[in-house]
């Protein structure tokens, strides 16, 4: 301390002179005329140059603080970006669904998939809509791209639907171009198959397959998929692989069509089949 005071004592002439210069400058800057404006501009320039010179010296604490702030900002921005991406995708999906809703003839209920099984032979999806939303067993489940499956169980608030990739679901379908009928089913692996199509039928790769009017559960004309390959099983039938329009792996929302086939028709067909046996 003594050394410091002695050092400052030696410098007192310069310190006093500096104080006087500072006082003079303060007095000068109190004025507001042309000269002073110029001096102020020069002073700002000089200060700017000095500051920019000093700014290359890294301030460890400042850098740490800045780093922390940038990290936090980065996390927040990432979170925001993720939310925006999610909102954009949801927006696109909902837009497509809305457009579809406007073109479909039946009343529909929108449901969100809350459970999905895609690794078993009896694949199902669970929806967050049920009987309170007028969902009934047997109603078709679709998306704007095409057929998904049908409702097989319903409670007050939830329902379960069999999807096309379920061995128990069979769908009467037809080739949209050639009107050739067949049955869409899934064997438990690979693609959907269109069965009961005679060898001589006109079915080509790329043909669109839709539900037929023979179906007890689905209205006619719902798109199912397109023909991926055509082969032969034996001398009588063709082996037709159908690529489904709906991608079940990314499916999130579906529509339940408020469509139930005519009960009288179902009863008649049931009684006739039993008599035939």
């Amino acid at each position, binding site marked *: 301390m003594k050394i410091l005071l002695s050092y400052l004592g030696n410098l*007192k*002439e310069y310190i*006093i*002179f500096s104080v006087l*210069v500072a006082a*003079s400058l303060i007095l*000068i800057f109190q004025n507001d005329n042309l000269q002073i404006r110029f001096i102020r501009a020069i002073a700002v320039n000089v200060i700017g140059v000095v500051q920019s010179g000093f700014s290359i010296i890294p301030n460890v604490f400042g850098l740490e603080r800045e780093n922390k702030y940038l990290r936090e900002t980065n996390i927040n921005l990432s979170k925001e970006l993720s939310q925006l991406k999610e909102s954009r995708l949801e927006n696109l999906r909902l837009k497509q669904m809305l457009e579809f809703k406007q073109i479909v003839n039946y009343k529909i209920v929108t449901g969100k998939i809350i459970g999905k099984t895609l690794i078993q032979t009896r694949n199902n999806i669970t929806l967050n809509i049920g009987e309170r939303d007028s969902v009934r067993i047997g109603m078709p489940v679709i998306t704007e791209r095409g057929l998904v499956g049908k409702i097989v169980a319903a409670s007050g608030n939830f329902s379960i639907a069999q999807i096309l990739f379920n061995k128990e679901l069979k769908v009467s379908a037809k080739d949209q171009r050639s009107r050739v009928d067949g049955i869409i089913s899934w064997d438990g692996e690979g693609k959907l198959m269109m069965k009961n199509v005679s060898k001589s039928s006109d079915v080509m790769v790329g043909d669109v397959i839709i539900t037929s009017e023979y179906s007890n559960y689905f209205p006619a004309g719902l798109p199912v998929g397109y023909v991926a390959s055509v082969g032969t099983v034996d001398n009588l039938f063709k082996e037709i692989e159908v690529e489904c329009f709906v991608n079940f792996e990314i499916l999130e929302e579906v529509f339940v069509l408020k469509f139930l086939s005519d009960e009288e028709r179902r009863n008649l067909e049931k009684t006739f089949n039993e008599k035939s046996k």
Partner: protein
Amino acid sequence: MGQNLKYSALLLVLVIAQKTLVWLLAVTGYEVTPDIVLVGLAYVGIKRGKITGSIAGFLSGLLLDLFSFSFIGLMALSKSAGGFLSGFFNNENKMERYLSSYGFVLIVFFCSMVNNVIYFTIYFQGTSLVFSDVLLRYVLPTAVYTSIISIIPVIFARKKLRRL
């Protein structure tokens, strides 16, 4: 304390003279007047050192600023610098020699140059005059004229010295 009062009174008189009588010494056409306050300051600085020189410069400059009705602080700044520089010649052994010889004229010239460079450079900011113009038209002539005027106290000092 008595010495300080004496120097303060001297500078006050010089300030008043500078603002009231110096126009009589002005070189008409060139607008050059001697800076008699600076001559007094150089004397005080040599006699009392840097601190007294700079404080005396600041106060006398401030008075000149107040009397000039221009912007305050500029003369205080330049006179502080002039007074401070003259303090560098404060040496017990050489003090009398400086004051009674033409060395004093050189000291005044040196201090006046610094004083004028600060004052006129700032004063002419924002005008069309460049530094070389300011230097040749104001700084140098004023410093030379002030130095010539500083011969008068040297003559008195030499006469006084001879009488002794």
